[in-house]
């Protein structure tokens, strides 16, 4: 019985010596088994590890990296993984912050910023780290030397998002340059769009037939891009309508869009010098429920039999019903939406369709307003740049020049 005790003591001593520098980390549990195995040699400790503040984060984050320990070879039974311990002072109590399986070489120690949470990790405070190579037997491990002090801090600029910043800045300068260029009266060329020529023709047709024009702004809210483009086209259409004294019906889906449309039409009638012809009933709110709105507009179409229906803006499932009933009422239909899902129906059932951002081009072309013209040209040149970049990138990807391609890869956090 004595020998067993002696061996047991030796084991304890061996355990104690090998964990040099291990302060009161968890005392090796009492194995209690009578089988006596020679204490396995501790795995090789990790050397020249590195700890630095986690880049591009909002603080309370440190990244610890280390080359694999000498015994960390594929299939080795000695190394089970790595544990990362942190302490406020080199001698201070080391708390385990996390474990990483064999073969891994990096660990992100992510604390929380709010003081109340138990995982609180203050910024700009010294921390000391060490990496412990752990083996299947918890009593046997090897610690690396302690590194520090390292401080976590929140960055003021996320370097991963540089490509987005470059694209946004280039595009902004492009837009400002072209808008000022257009404001100074430069004649910027835009190729004619079939859909737009049809709008003028259709307004003329409506005047001859003495029937009103129905203008639908779509289901978007006032802040949506397609609706803003539609305001511009409505402004131009209502200016012409004011000159030709044709009827104009504008049923609206969204109250804010209605009030903005009213003011746009009022402004156009003012420009055309006929403020008296404008009355608020031309632009009216119908309902906020999608399908009840469509049924009401269908009713108006079949009652008023407008010569021309113009649908510009954001449209959803009801686009087909509008186009179908419009065809039934025998009117010329011109549609334009950036809602990609509805374009097939408009292409098939209407006489002219503005596809996607041809709607934006239409508002620039019709409006001939320097601002819209300028921004359209900016988009065009940006598109040209993107086409060139895509071709160069495609060739780069196919001929192995990979780091040019990775310039455009932006991680998403």
């Amino acid at each position, binding site marked *: 019985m004595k020998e067993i005790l002696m061996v047991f003591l030796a084991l304890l001593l061996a355990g104690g010596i090998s964990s040099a520098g291990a302060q009161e980390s968890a005392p090796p549990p009492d194995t209690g088994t009578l089988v006596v195995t020679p204490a396995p040699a501790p795995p090789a400790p990790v050397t020249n590890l590195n700890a630095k503040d986690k880049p591009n*984060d*909002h*603080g309370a984050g440190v990244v610890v990296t280390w080359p694999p320990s000498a015994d960390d070879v594929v299939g080795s039974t000695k190394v089970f993984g790595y544990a990362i311990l942190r302490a406020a002072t080199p001698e201070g109590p080391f708390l385990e912050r996390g474990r990483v399986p064999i073969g891994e070489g990096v660990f992100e120690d992510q604390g929380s*910023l709010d003081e109340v949470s138990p995982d609180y990790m203050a910024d700009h405070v010294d921390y000391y780290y060490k990496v412990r190579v752990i083996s299947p037997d918890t009593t046997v491990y090897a610690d690396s030397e302690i590194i520090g002090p390292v401080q976590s801090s*929140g960055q*003021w*600029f*996320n370097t991963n*998002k540089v490509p*987005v*910043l470059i694209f*946004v800045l280039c*595009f902004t300068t492009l*837009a*400002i340059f072209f*808008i000022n260029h257009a404001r100074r009266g430069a004649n910027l060329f835009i190729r004619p769009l079939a859909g737009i020529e049809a709008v003028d023709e259709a307004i003329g047709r409506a005047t001859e037939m003495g029937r009103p024009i129905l203008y639908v702004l779509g289901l978007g809210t*006032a802040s949506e*891009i397609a609706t*803003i*483009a539609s*305001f*511009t086209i409505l402004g131009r259409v209502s200016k012409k309508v004011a000159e030709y004294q044709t009827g104009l019906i504008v049923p609206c889906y*969204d*109250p*804010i869009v209605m009030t*903005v449309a*009213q*003011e*746009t039409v*009022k402004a156009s009638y*003012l420009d055309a010098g006929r403020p008296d012809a404008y009355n608020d009933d031309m632009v*009216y*709110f119908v*309902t*906020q*429920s999608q*399908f*009840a709105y469509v*049924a009401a507009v269908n009713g108006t179409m079949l009652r008023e039999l407008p010569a021309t229906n113009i649908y510009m803006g954001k449209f959803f*499932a009801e686009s*087909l*019903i509008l*186009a*179908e009933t419009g*065809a039934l009422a025998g009117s010329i239909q011109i549609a334009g939406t*950036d809602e*990609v899902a509805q374009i*097939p129906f408009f*292409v*098939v*059932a209407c006489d002219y369709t503005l596809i*996607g*951002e041809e709607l*934006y081009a239409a508002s620039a072309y019709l409006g001939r307003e320097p*601002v819209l013209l300028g*921004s359209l040209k*900016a*988009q065009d040149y*940006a*598109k040209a740049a993107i086409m060139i970049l895509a071709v160069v990138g495609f060739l780069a990807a196919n001929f192995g020049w990979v780091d040019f391609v990775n310039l455009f890869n932006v991680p998403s956090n």
Partner: protein
Amino acid sequence: MKRQIPLALVFFFGVLMIIQYFVPHEASEWTFEFLMDWIYIIGIFALALGIWSLVKVSWDKIRLRRENWQYAIVTLLGLVAMICFGFDYFRNVFNAAGLQNFMFRHFFDYIMIPIQSTMFSLLAFFIASASYRAFRARSLLASLLLLAALIVMIRFNPYFGPLTAYLEQTASWLLNVPNLAAKRAIVIGVGLGMVATALKVILGIERAYLGKD
């Protein structure tokens, strides 16, 4: 006063939100949270406009005996009934018990669901009559569109024997190659359009949303 300050506000908040995207620091997260908190409340008040406008339109319809004014009464009755049920017969307005109210739930399940889904099922009929009378291969492009549509519509039809697998493969190729290229170009184009218009609004160039005073 009426125009300068709103434009300054748009510019300030717009640039603030752009910068906020690039700054991971905790301060930028704090401003983001602070602004979001405010915007939800302002947005809800803005939507109350829509309800008020519906009530005004219906009320005018009834007062002026416009066409179908009797149905406007049905609209207002439906509105008042739902509000009354939603507040649990005005017993508890300040807690969400109204949402579990028997009549409120049944009005949703047995009035809103049947009517709204049936209204949209009319679309199936409109497609049938449109495909019968409106969808013509007027031009090469329209015929290309119809051909692609027919291939995609036949893809799960099992009655073509050996041809079924080929049809299925063609339809999947169509969706994953030409359709992908087309939609990618549209997405890039629309993306540029969105950013351009948003920039114009922030720089105060696009003022349609303010309207003319």
